[in-house]
């Protein structure tokens, strides 16, 4: 499953540690929410980055207190038809100002890339090799966006009002 | 989506066919004994046991590129050997609408 990070195919530096498996002494790790909450302080104090896989049916409230010490949050699309993680992503980015890696995992397919980027994901665990290869051309598909989200792209409405403003300002 | 094979135990109570719609244009099609598809019910492979129905459906479902939504449908075999649709829905799929189209074909 190729990882696309900041627009490029990248090596995953995180070791996925299964529940019950031993935690490596150092290096970046990705653990489940249950594992993390069980022993958060110890995990955060060990050398190496910590990322948490947060399920899409769990409130973010339990995660929020740790956000500034987490290097990554992985949200889950058990099916590409289940859109709960889009809301979680926007909340993490836009409300809780999470600046670490926000990763989409699960059924991550080409035709949802643009939505994911707009919702604030910057790392995608892409399911199919071919989709990962097509990343660059896929995310160029759209140049017009109607909704303001945390990704900062100008909306159609703001472009229009700006245009109108500049028109009326010119002689 | 669960595959039609897993949806429920396949049990047929009479002669049946496997039908679907053709992917590129949506036309109603029937699985044939030659492991292909035909738009004519008369060409359909007839199965009479649940095992045969399951096998024919499995073969149809495997053709995900060519056909959509394969399922088992009942048919009636007339005395002259003609195959007729087994219920109103299949009758409409096979013979067309029960009303006149707004623009005659």
């Amino acid at each position: 499953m190729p990882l696309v990070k900041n627009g490029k195919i990248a090596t995953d530096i995180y070791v996925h540690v299964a529940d019950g498996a031993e935690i490596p002494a150092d290096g970046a790790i990705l653990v489940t929410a249950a594992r993390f909450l069980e022993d958060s302080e110890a995990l955060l104090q060990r050398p190496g980055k910590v990322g948490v896989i947060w399920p899409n049916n769990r409130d973010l409230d339990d995660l929020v207190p740790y956000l500034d010490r987490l290097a990554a949050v992985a949200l889950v699309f058990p099916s590409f038809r289940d859109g709960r993680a889009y809301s979680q992503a926007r909340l993490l980015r836009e409300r809780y100002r999470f600046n670490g890696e926000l990763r989409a995992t699960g059924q991550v397919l080409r035709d949802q890339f643009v939505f994911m980027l707009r919702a604030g994901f910057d790392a995608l665990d892409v399911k199919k090799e071919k989709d990962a290869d097509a990343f660059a051309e896929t995310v160029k598909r759209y140049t017009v966006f109607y909704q303001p989200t945390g990704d900062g792209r100008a909306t159609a409405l703001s472009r229009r009002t700006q245009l109108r403003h500049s028109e009326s300002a010119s002689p | 989506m669960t595959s039609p094979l897993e949806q429920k135990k396949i049990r047929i109570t009479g002669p049946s066919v496997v039908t679907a719609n053709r992917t590129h244009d949506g036309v109603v099609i029937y699985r044939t004994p030659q492991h292909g598809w035909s738009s004519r019910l008369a060409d359909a492979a007839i199965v009479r046991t649940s095992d045969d129905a399951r096998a024919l459906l499995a073969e149809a479902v495997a053709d995900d590129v060519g056909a959509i939504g394969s399922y088992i449908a009942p048919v009636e075999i007339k005395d002259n050997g003609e195959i007729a649709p087994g219920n109103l829905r299949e009758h409409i799929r096979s013979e067309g609408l029960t009303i006149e189209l707004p623009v005659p074909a």
Partner: protein
Amino acid sequence: MYAYDELDRTLLHERVEEFRDQVKRRLSGELTEDEFKILRLQNGVYLQLHAYMFRVAIPYGTLSSKQLRALAYVARRYDRGYGHFTTRQNIQFNWIKLAELPDALADLAEVGIHAMQTSGNNMRNVTSDQWAGVAPSEVEDPRIWSELLRQHTTLHPEFSFLPRKFKIAITASDHDRAAIRIHDIGLRLHKNADGETGFEVLVGGGLGRTPFIGKTIKPFVHGRDILSYVEAILRVYNQYGRRDNIYKARIKILVHELGIEKFGKEVEEEWQLLRDSALTLDDAAIEEVRSRFSYPAYEKLPHMPDELKQAAHDPLFERWRKNSVFPHKAQGYSIVTLSLKPVGGPPGDATAEQMDVIADLADRYSFGEIRVGHEQNLALPHVAKRDLPALWKALDKVGLATPNVNLVSDIIACPGLDYCSLANARSIPIAQELTRRFANHDTAGLIGRLHINISGCINACGHHHVGHIGILGVEKNGEEFYQITIGGRADESAALGTLIGPSVPYAEVADVVEDIVEAYLALRDSPDELFIDTVKRLGVEPFRERVYATR
């Protein structure tokens, strides 16, 4: 009319190209049907019994003559020469080939029409009053807000994979022609005590297996806050709406299970955190959208022109005028409803030829504008009264002047088992038989306003729950049976109908409906008492007794 600008057009073309690529990947086998299904649904493409069905959006029911001609072209070029107008201001084509769909979409995009989100579990076409902008005593044109919402809900990055479909309707009149109370979100535009424009927001309405009338979640949301408030509702729904059971996934179930107060509290909390954000509409943004709606330059015309006085001698014209012509906000003008319910015809269908004629008539008599209503009829919204006689003659020539608007043969019906893969029973032939039974316009006039709604299955596309008489097709041992309800309504006093008795077989439906109508004629306290009012006054029982006494 709303005029698309370069940005809207660019987005449409980008969408068409994306879909072209998706179709290509599907036909090559790169995408499985399971993966492709959601993508095609997001573009309004269903698979029906005989073929693919293609549903095109007509946002808030407004079409230009150019757009209607493009729909006629698509009907001819890619389909079988006709289209079907639905109860949600969409048009459906029944015989489209998947391989040709991208071309059809590209042709429609040329005139600013799209099929985005006309199906699938996302925010559907935003609908409104088909008389928006021309109805007398309207608060203001609700289409400004409909268009703001249309844009906001189009390809929304957070809400394109909701638990289930999501429908928004807007009205700005006291009389609700947009059926807002049976929508996931219903918006009623009104002014508060300070004269500011805003919305009463209703939530959780919907029909289907478990019908509910929408409940007020907030009596007044200021116009500038409407996007953030809708966003708050959707965010709560996206996170907490049920995804374990398709029949319990609509927002109405969440609202029902939590109760409107608890649900309202969740939304309020979310909204307080969202409201002061980029979603707030400033005056410039609202003005920007408003400025791209153009309105006709009405002439100063007499209330009663000579042409109308002369034509009044023709009883056929007069019958049509009294039935199909409605008051307009501008003096000397009328709104004209075009019945798509000819005797013996399938409700809501129009041929490509009819569409072209209507487009020409719209150019000549209605400033090039056409409207589509949820009753599956069309309207010409700005007809000078002096032109009514000429318009009537032209409409009559192509079968579009049936004087049955709002009468018993103005039936709303879904496509039913003749087309639809979900249906249990046929709808169209039932409607056709009923229009034949009530073909006599004098009798129909005597009966007065009476809405019959027919659905071929519990999904209720024909809105049977809110028909004055509702007919629902079910299957019993392989046979078509129909449950009949009375007393439903879809307007500002929306109510669900009550079952009148045991279901009846296909062949008896028209007889039962005739008996119900006869019972009404006997039971009403005066010729002015409408069917729906008689049912309300007396309840179902006296109808049940009369209709089922001999059955």
